[in-house]
């Protein structure tokens, strides 16, 4: 094994130009994939933070005793996909309403009594995928006894939720496409690299080298190249990210979500895949060039 690694390194040294160009191509491909992943992850975070805006208000029948309200609260909290529940008394509701109304609050000043009902505010889990689910949960809550009526967000946000869904779907699809394209770019680059050297394979075979003996260092080279390209790619992205985000972060994102780099696992996975692409390139080319 050490012997083969030594041979691989020696060989990379002997064919520096070819290997440098190959690593450049791999680096660029990995940069594309990881940049897109980074973009997508953050866009997705943004979407998630947005979705948290969806709330269901469950209005409670008038004159319900407090204990029963607590029961109901518990019951709603145990409903699927509910993250959090909060009791909002009619007094609190009126105060909120006044705040919301802004200019028009004057309307409420000469009110006699508080005609608003008590309510339970229901926050949903971020795992909610589309508007239909929100509607389903609302219907479920409405069916509970003591619940007079439910009201949920503006239909607007619901529609955007669906568009987010589409966005995420397209994002993932594009990620997969970019990823596959990059793997194939890397693999084909390594094929190109090896094609220019197939005389060498032929000579080695003619002097009695087994296929395994010939292949081993090339696989190692392919994997090393994949690793180097992957690591450089991720590093370049990280540095760019760091420079950009340290200039931008304060300005924009802190309110709703904060920009973050690729999670370690994903970065690591991308490098592993880059190595896999290197391996695949070898596999495809060696399969082809070692035919008799």
């Amino acid at each position: 094994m050490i012997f083969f690694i030594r041979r691989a390194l020696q060989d990379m040294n002997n064919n520096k130009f070819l290997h440098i160009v190959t690593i450049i191509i791999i680096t660029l491909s990995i940069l594309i994939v990881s940049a897109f992943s980074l973009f997508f992850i953050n866009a997705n975070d943004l979407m998630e933070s947005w979705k948290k805006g969806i709330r269901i208000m469950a209005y409670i029948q008038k004159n319900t005793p407090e204990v029963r309200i607590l029961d109901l609260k518990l019951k709603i909290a145990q409903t699927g996909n509910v993250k959090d529940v909060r009791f909002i008394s009619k007094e609190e509701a009126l105060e909120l309403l006044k705040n919301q109304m802004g200019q028009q609050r004057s309307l409420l000043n000469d009110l006699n009594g508080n005609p608003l009902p008590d309510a339970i505010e229901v926050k949903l889990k971020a795992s909610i995928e589309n508007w239909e689910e929100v509607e389903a949960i609302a219907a479920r809550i409405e069916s509970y006894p003591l619940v007079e009526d439910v009201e949920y967000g503006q239909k607007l946000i619901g529609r955007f939720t669906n568009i987010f869904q589409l966005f995420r779907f397209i994002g993932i699809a594009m990620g997969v496409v970019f990823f596959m394209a990059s793997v194939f770019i890397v693999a084909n680059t390594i094929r190109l690299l090896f094609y220019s050297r197939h005389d060498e394979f032929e000579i080695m075979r003619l002097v009695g080298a087994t296929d395994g003996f010939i292949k081993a260092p090339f696989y190692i080279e392919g994997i090393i190249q994949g690793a180097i390209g992957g690591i450089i790619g991720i590093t370049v992205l990280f540095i760019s990210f760091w420079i950009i985000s340290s200039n931008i972060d304060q300005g924009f994102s802190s309110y709703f979500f904060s920009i973050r780099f690729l999670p370690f696992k994903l970065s690591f996975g991308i490098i592993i895949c880059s190595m896999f692409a290197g391996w695949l390139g070898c596999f495809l080319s060696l399969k082809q060039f070692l035919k008799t």
Partner: protein
Amino acid sequence: MIEKNNSDYLIRMFHVSKSFVAKSALSDISLDIVKNEFVIITGPSGAGKTTFLKLLYLGETASQGQILIDGKNLSRITRKNIPFLRRTFGIIFQDYKLIHTKTVFENIALVLEAAGNKRSYVQKKVKSVLRIVGMEGRNNSYPPSLSGGEQQRVAIARAVVGNPKIILADEPTGSLDPQSAEIIVNLLKKFHKRGATVIIATHDRELIRTTKSRVINLKEGYVQSPKVITI
């Protein structure tokens, strides 16, 4: 001709032909080569000498006929076993076939490494064989920086470094001056004396004249009037 024991035959060919697309290179070749024979194959350019050698080391497969080497039928050798067949040969290719991106040392060491030899043995053996062909001190040169004759000598060194049972030499003295050529021919003869079977393909009249041995004369793919001279 003396009757031979079956096990004396190293190479047997039965009605072997090789044709390429629109071109026949060898036709109906039947001949036997016994162990430790020294054979010269000659004939004009394009007669099929190189193709003849290629058939032996499975650089090409025969279109027709059967070839036995050491009793094994080449058409029955599996792909996996080809490298092991080839290790019984030491081959000097007409166009040398040196790897241009590896040094002289690495080119020769490759044969021994591929056969699984230890590093220290490889080091010693490669150096000694380079000394024999007069290329000591060029260890770290790359083939493109060598003269034609120097490349040929490296190719010869590579062919003999593994102490092969059979040496196939395709025009081994084509790029060499008479003195260097003599050294090489003596080297081949030394291996022959040690027990190797040597097959040389050449045009070199000098070589044919000074080496009293069996000469197979090819012409347009056919064997011409075979004559056997034992040394």
